[in-house]
């Protein structure tokens, strides 16, 4: 690996814009996520955080601007093609296959990544490589005991972990975590923080979160988004000290 390729960020957006009529959810966002980053994206409600994820993953098509993954332009690629290139996400509202078992939720992702999910002949579950990898992922997050239980029977906190495991099954380079602790009782969110902390170091993480404890514990850099534009970016200490951030995000008035 040369220095030049190391210097290319995992994910970049250049002058990314998206508007619905008069409403602008992203206005000229220049964003960069380093390889192996632990970065958070914060901002008040309606700041455009989830829209940003939708733009990066291809759910929404940008009005203008470019998206680069490890230097390659992926702006025109479909959602599925971007996943194949290494962008995975989790959902703010748990989006799992509720009637299927935990192991099956993961193996769906693994077999899709391996390009075997279109197979019409061999019975599902007969490929050891896929089952073993799915199981290993579950075990790495302490979910192996639930492997054969349907997702809908799991406590919500455990479902949030499955949400992460499914994304890991795609072996992503960039993982976008959309409020990973949303809806989890504060007593259980510690497990989610621990899990995220232990994720492989080579995955670039972008965490969108409202829970400031979680953000300050996990993130090494923080980007603040306000009304579809980046207000400021910096280390947690810098962000905590920033008057503008306090003003818009915490609702405090700046000293006169």
């Amino acid at each position, binding site marked *: 690996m040369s220095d030049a390729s190391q210097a290319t960020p995992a994910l970049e957006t250049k002058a990314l814009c998206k508007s619905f009529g008069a409403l602008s959810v992203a206005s000229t966002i220049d964003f960069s996520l380093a390889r192996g980053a632990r970065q958070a994206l914060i901002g008040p409600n309606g700041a455009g955080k989830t829209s940003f994820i939708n733009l990066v993953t291809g759910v929404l098509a940008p009005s203008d601007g470019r998206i680069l993954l490890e230097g390659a332009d992926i702006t025109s690629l479909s959602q599925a093609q971007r996943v194949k290139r290494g962008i995975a996400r989790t959902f703010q509202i748990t989006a*799992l296959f509720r009637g299927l078992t935990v192991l099956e939720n993961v193996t769906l992702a693994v077999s*899709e990544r391996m390009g075997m999910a*279109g*197979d019409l002949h061999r019975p599902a*579950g007969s490929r050891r490589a896929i089952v073993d990898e799915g199981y290993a992922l579950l075990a790495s997050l302490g979910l192996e005991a639930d492997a054969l239980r349907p997702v809908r029977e799991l406590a919500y906190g455990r479902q949030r972990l499955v949400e992460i495991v499914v994304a890991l099954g795609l072996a992503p380079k960039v993982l976008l975590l959309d409020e990973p602790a949303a809806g989890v009782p504060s007593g259980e969110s510690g497990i989610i923080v621990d899990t995220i902390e232990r994720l492989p170091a080579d995955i670039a993480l972008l965490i969108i979160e409202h829970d400031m404890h979680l953000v300050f514990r996990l993130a090494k850099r923080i980007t603040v988004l306000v009304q579809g534009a980046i207000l400021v970016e910096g280390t947690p200490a810098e962000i905590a000290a920033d008057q503008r951030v306090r003003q818009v995000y915490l609702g405090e008035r700046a000293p006169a």
Partner: protein
Amino acid sequence: MTEIAAHDAPQGTVGIFSRRHRLRWTEALPWVIALASYFAFPNYLALGSQILATILYGLSLDLVLGYAGIVTLGHAAFFGTGAYAAGLLAAHGYGEPFLGLVVAAISAGIVGCLTGAIILRTSGLTLLMQTLMVAAMLHEAANKANSITGGADGLQGMEVKPVFGLFRFDLYGKTAYLYCLGVLFIGWIIVRRIVYSPFGRSLTGIRENEARMHAIGTPVFRRRLTAYSISAALAGVSGALIAQTTQFVAVDAYGFERSGNILIMLLLGGIGRLYGAFIGVPLYMIAQDQFAEIDPVYWYFWIGLLLVLVVLFARGGALGTLERLKARWSKR
């Protein structure tokens, strides 16, 4: 890599996971019953072969509705295409039954692929209406093309050759019954294989949560289109079976009742369970036959009443009710 190797799935888990597709003894039941009925009800073989062919039609609908979650009111588009394909071949001197089935499957599959490529881009009510329109358009086309299809009077002069060149379609329907049974068996093997394949599981995934399937990199549209085309081909074979065994096709093969009734039959049996059609179709068709005999004027009322009762008291159809009873039993 060593870390992953240390976490190889335990044999028990793998076993349960990879053995789901193995045959259970209960899965032999439909075939035992079908064969026994051949000997037990020699006077009902004509009805029996209609039932067997319609089960295949229900099976094809279950693939798109129960597994891929595509709600359709236009499956007759494929049933009718298959029926006309086999009918026209037999009316023009190509009465080889298996040739008829193959051509029916191919032509219905093509219709499914072409129309699916357009309408599967939509979803919900829009999609439902479009499936309805496709069948309605084909119905009208068959009606207008009087010189080819015979229109409302039906296609005349079908001559279906003996099966394997040996077994003539007889008056008692013996050949027809066994022919339909054999074809249904092959159709069942195909659908069962698909349902338990990774492709089938990904269809279930699309039904359970389409947004997440996009997010794990599934080409959702292509998967759906493949399932729709396969289902269309099977529905075409079913149409061909009925055309060949009754030696007749009319425009009602494309009719709305063809699309609607099969939906009702499948709901009666239970959708997304592979065997819904095996229960719902015989139940409906035998009830229809019996009610029509007892009460020739108002028999449709009794069918309606049966449906209301199923919706009120037996959600998920016969198989759904059976599952609930089993679950309650095992809790004790």
